């Protein structure tokens, strides 16, 4: 059997790997071994992994190869190495959620539901990934495990809170990773690391056996280096799960088969007002994407600033409620920056949190009306390219804003009402930046079709880091 050299697989897509394994040009074992070698070689710098599940991965890869040897059908992700943000339960590991405190928890006894679904499709888990403490973060910094580093400039942020996911996929360690997105934690690292990220509709993918942050805003989703790979992973993870009370009872709606329909017949508009680009990089990215998609009209998302504010206070309050006992008992074991935000969140007046939830329903109904006129809306993913690690503020137009709270200012008003979004990477030099493709609820297919169309036109791409 021919084996593809490990060095050729560095930036291979999941689609390439599935084809190589299915055709016998490579084995799952050699692909997983190559991924493990890359992790050993590069992760001391990128710092994206907090655990590598080597023995488990090798056994799993051998099982995939054995399936093929028996002449049985392979799953749609056969032999694809993947890793998960360390808030996903991984059997045998404590679910850290980026914290020191959770290291004292007993190891998980069962994998998170989405890991089970990806492995049922033939993918191979290779480890758990660094993240911001308890997911209350947009930077990718972590006081306990160190910052995960941007693959395009190691002095810069990966973005958060799924920073390890962004760094591992953008740095070529794995072609696929999972993360969570409460206010932007998939889309921000995707933008800063120059990769594709999908935040599906709220309730689409099961959250069973993952560590929560804000129950009414938490989403899970994949990172990859192509839109097709996102679709493959997303399709394998869909489906109702009674173990997650928020998981919607909807049929599986596969997207990979419709990707090639591209942008044909779709009406795309550019978000105006609050979302108007405010830096050279964001304006260039929006101009490129809008021109390629024929998006020649602007659309105003009503009350987006207020929506962001409502998401901000729901996050603060629900997050604090989750951690109140830990704040009482182990305050000194938190990252101080997270602790002080959570303590303040615990003091948010309940009457205003309820008002924010009422506003949320009003806002959802107003934005839903926009999708009578358009099929998708594009907006910047982040207000800037990757800041330096440790950088406290950035310039937003003429205003200096704190980094930690504001890298997600374009993402928060969208996840607030659970809309599906694909973040696509515009490969600027020296640093990439992302654009959000936002669709109506349950229309991930539209966002992924547009992402794929942009890729085919050469407007967006996940580029390997410069040597």
């Amino acid at each position: 059997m021919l084996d593809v050299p490990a060095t050729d697989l560095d930036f291979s897509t999941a689609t390439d790997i599935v084809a190589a394994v299915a055709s016998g040009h490579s084995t799952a074992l050699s692909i997983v071994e190559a991924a493990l070698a890359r992790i050993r070689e590069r992760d001391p710098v990128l710092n994206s992994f907090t655990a590598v599940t080597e023995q488990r991965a090798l056994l799993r890869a051998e099982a995939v190869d054995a399936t093929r040897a028996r002449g049985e059908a392979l799953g749609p992700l056969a032999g694809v190495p993947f890793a998960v943000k360390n808030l996903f339960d991984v059997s045998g590991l404590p679910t850290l959620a980026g914290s020191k405190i959770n290291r004292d928890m007993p190891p998980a006894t069962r994998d998170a539901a989405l890991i089970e679904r990806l492995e049922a499709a033939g993918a191979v888990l290779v480890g758990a990934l660094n993240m911001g403490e308890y997911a209350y973060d947009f930077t990718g910094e972590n006081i306990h495990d160190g910052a995960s580093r941007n693959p395009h400039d190691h002095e810069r942020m990966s973005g958060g809170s799924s920073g390890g996911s962004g760094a591992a996929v953008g740095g070529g360690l794995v072609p696929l990773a999972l993360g969570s997105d409460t206010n932007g934690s998939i889309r921000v690292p995707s933008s800063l690391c120059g990769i594709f990220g999908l935040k599906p509709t709220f309730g689409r993918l099961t959250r069973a056996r993952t560590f929560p942050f804000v129950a009414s805003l938490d989403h899970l989703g994949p990172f990859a280096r192509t839109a097709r790979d996102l679709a493959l992973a997303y399709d394998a993870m869909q489906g109702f799960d009674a173990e997650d009370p928020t998981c919607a009872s909807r049929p599986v709606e596969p997207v990979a088969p419709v990707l090639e329909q591209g942008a044909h017949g779709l009406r795309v508009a550019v978000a105006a007002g609050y979302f108007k680009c405010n830096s050279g990089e964001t304006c260039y990215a929006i101009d490129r994407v809008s021109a390629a998609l024929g998006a020649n009209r602007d659309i105003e998302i009503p009350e987006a600033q207020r929506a962001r504010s409502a998401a901000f206070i729901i996050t603060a309050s629900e997050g604090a409620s989750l951690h109140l006992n830990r704040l009482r008992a182990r305050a000194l074991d938190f990252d101080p920056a997270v602790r002080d935000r959570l303590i303040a969140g615990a003091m948010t007046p309940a009457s205003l949190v309820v008002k924010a939830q009422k506003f949320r329903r009003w806002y959802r109904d107003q934005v839903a009306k926009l999708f009578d006129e358009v099929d998708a809306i594009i907006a910047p993913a982040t207000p800037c390219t990757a800041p330096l690690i440790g950088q406290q503020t950035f310039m937003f137009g003429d205003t200096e804003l704190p980094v930690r709270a504001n890298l997600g200012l374009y993402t928060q008003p969208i996840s607030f009402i659970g809309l599906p979004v694909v973040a696509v990477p515009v490969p600027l030099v020296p640093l990439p930046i992302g654009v959000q493709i936002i669709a109506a609820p349950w229309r991930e297919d539209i966002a992924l079709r547009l992402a794929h169309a942009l890729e085919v036109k050469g407007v967006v791409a996940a580029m390997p880091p410069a040597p």
Partner: protein
Amino acid sequence: MKRKVIRNSPPAPKRDSIDSLIIANAQALGLTLDPSWEASVKFNLQLILRHAALVDDFSLPDDAEPAEIFHA
């Protein structure tokens, strides 16, 4: 001759309503606040309250339903 007063620590900052709110809330919630955290907690609470004011300022009908159990 006037004696010079030597202080061991800087004068306590003047407390405002947010400081009082933080102290009262911490007591009510059973949270122990180290004095060195207070400035950061105050900064974050002021930020939350600025966002909350924007939400509070929005007029909704009395029968508006909250969306705690959210369906997209």
